[in-house]
């Protein structure tokens, strides 16, 4: 476990100018992994670039990342966070659960972690340890998502608008959508609707060319501003975000529209400031009107709710880190016991090689020596198996100088 490390260049530690330079893929680390028993997992998203490793020299890895990104090693150290051992696995669990994201609880990150893992498997840069770590990561993220309400409520105005539309119409693929305005906010909301399956999108803008551009991007239909009333009659979901100083949809207009629509339900999301829709229009029968303030206050509630849920999520993460540490500990305990018995073999071989006994006597002495040492080491091994804590393993390795001897043996 102590050999696990993580290098993270994220939205907290580095500006976007640095983050955009550090784009890592598992293929970049094949060389490092091929040299020994090392494992590497690389993850790059819009807010972070991270490398998790075990059995790889940290300095060599840092230099490799620096050379890949074109950022000097010294600068890289200033922009990155480095986690080791349990802290590294905790960080991975938190990242996958959306607890380390810019928007707490967002769920896209898990898909990105899974994609990166698929790439790592294809590149062959992960093995037993990181495979187990990543499977635990997916399990933890799933627990966080199902056992807490962290991702339950939307925390962006666009998502909230889409959610409201889904509650009214169910399947929004059958509901025509009208987007008034072609600015950033209207575009984001329209894209979210498109992602949720909206099929029939119409974009109206005073500047027709801007409407055409957004329509081309979203696969919608551009209309001139004069077609506003006609489209209001047809569409069930309306998103409006124009720069108009006065309302473009009035109560009188909506009275007429709703009458002609024969009271078919309609949801209007007005995210413009100043508002595009007269508040009175929301009083029309079967017309659901939400302005930016209404949506913002709901979204703020959801954000604070997510923060409340974070504590529950962190408890789950801690429990899972503990489980993983126990597993890693037992794995290291087995390795330590193996190393102890290798050390015993080495000691017997060196002792027997140094004496000049007759072969018959030498065999008896070796047998006695081996049996005594085995009996002695058995106690240590049993204790380690029963208590595979990191402290016990570390102390055993330090007392018997296993790490030094192990390396020396393999050098030889």
């Amino acid at each position, binding site marked *: 476990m102590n050999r696990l490390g993580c290098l993270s260049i994220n939205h907290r530690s580095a500006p976007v100018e640095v983050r955009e330079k550090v784009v890592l893929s598992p293929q970049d680390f094949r060389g490092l992994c091929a040299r020994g028993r090392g494992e590497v997992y690389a993850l790059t998203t819009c807010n972070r670039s991270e490398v998790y490793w075990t059995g790889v020299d940290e300095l060599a890895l840092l230099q490799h990342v620096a050379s890949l990104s074109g950022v000097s090693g010294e600068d890289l150290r200033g922009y990155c966070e480095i986690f080791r051992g349990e802290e590294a696995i905790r960080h991975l669990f938190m990242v996958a659960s959306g607890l380390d994201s810019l928007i707490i609880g967002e769920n896209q990150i898990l898909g990105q972690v899974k994609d990166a893992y698929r790439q790592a498997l294809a590149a062959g840069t992960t093995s037993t340890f990181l495979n187990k770590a990543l499977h635990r990561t997916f399990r933890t993220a799933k627990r966080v998502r199902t056992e807490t309400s962290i991702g*339950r*409520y939307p925390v962006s105005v666009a998502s909230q608008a889409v959610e*409201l539309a889904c509650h*009214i119409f169910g399947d929004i693929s059958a509901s025509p959508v009208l987007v008034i305005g072609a600015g950033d906010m209207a575009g984001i909301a329209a894209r979210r609707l498109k992602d949720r399956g909206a099929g029939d999108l119409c974009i109206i803008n005073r500047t027709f060319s801007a409407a055409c551009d957004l329509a081309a991007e979203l696969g919608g239909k551009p209309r001139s501003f004069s077609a506003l009333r006609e489209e209001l009659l047809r569409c069930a979901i309306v998103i409006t975000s124009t720069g108009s100083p006065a309302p473009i949809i009035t109560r009188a207009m909506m009275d007429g529209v709703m009458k002609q629509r024969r009271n078919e339900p309609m949801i209007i999301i007005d995210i413009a400031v100043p508002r595009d829709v007269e508040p009175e229009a929301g009083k029309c029968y*079967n017309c659901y009107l939400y302005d930016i303030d209404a949506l913002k206050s709901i979204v703020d509630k959801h954000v604070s709710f997510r923060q409340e849920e974070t504590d529950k999520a962190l408890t789950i993460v801690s429990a899972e880190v503990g489980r993983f540490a126990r597993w890693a500990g037992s794995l290291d305990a087995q390795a330590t016991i193996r190393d102890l018995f290798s050390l015993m073999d080495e000691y017997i071989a060196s002792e027997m090689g140094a004496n000049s006994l007759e072969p018959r006597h030498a065999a008896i002495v070796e047998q006695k020596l081996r049996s005594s040492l085995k009996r002695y080491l058995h106690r240590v091994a049993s204790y380690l198996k029963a208590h595979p804590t990191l402290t016990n393993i570390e102390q055993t390795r330090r007392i018997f100088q296993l790490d030094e001897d192990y390396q020396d043996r393999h050098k030889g």
Partner: protein
Amino acid sequence: MILWIMVLLYVLTGVCFITYLFWRRRPVVLIARGMFLASIAIHILLTLSMTGPACPIPLASPVQAANMMVLLASLVFIFFAFRRQTAVLGAFFLPVAGVALGMIAPRLQAGEGALPAMFQAWYPLHTVSVVAGEALFAVAFVVSVVYLIHEGIIRKGHLHWSAASLPPLKLLDRILSACLGAGFVAITAGMLFGALWASSLDVDLSQIAMKISAGAAMWLVFAFSLHQRFAIRWSGRRTALITIAGFLIMIILFVGVNLAYPGAHGAGLAR
């Protein structure tokens, strides 16, 4: 004993669906569906056990009619229970059904015998149509309540997580419309059959004036609702409110006429 087991099963199934409303896990809904099926199977068997040579259809008394109404409404809800979007409707129907059955259960145990007039062809046609119509109105009532709850949540904007389980408004409105339409046809047919049955008995109309007035009032409420819906396109909240009002009037009339004027309808009339 079996009757009480059935009542208990209905209530427990309702608890399962309520759990599903707040804790949306697949095993919960699977258990709820299984229990619902078991409840209905027992209910059908019990209802069939009421029939015999002395009583060809189990609609010989207002209590049996109420039992049949709950059974028919349950058959509609079992259809909803097996659809993902509408499964939670059981959370609103089953507890009420359980309580209703609990109230009529002691009288159901007594058993009913059909009177000679009930063996006429118009009687089963009348009762089955009316009870089916009332069952559909009961379904419409529950759907209306769910509609108003869900709409209230949507108007506030904060979509509480239990609202995620509720069916979309448009779907609820469609179900409401279908139930009202079919229920109205059944009730209208039932009233016509009832009139034919009463005329075949050669009774004095003043004897059943109260029932005729009550039935006509209820019929008018639903006719008004359907007219507004299809002619003026009232949908959603207004239809839901009228349906709730209409159903409550129907219950008051059903209980009121049968308790206050026992001789003015059904078995009383047949005597």
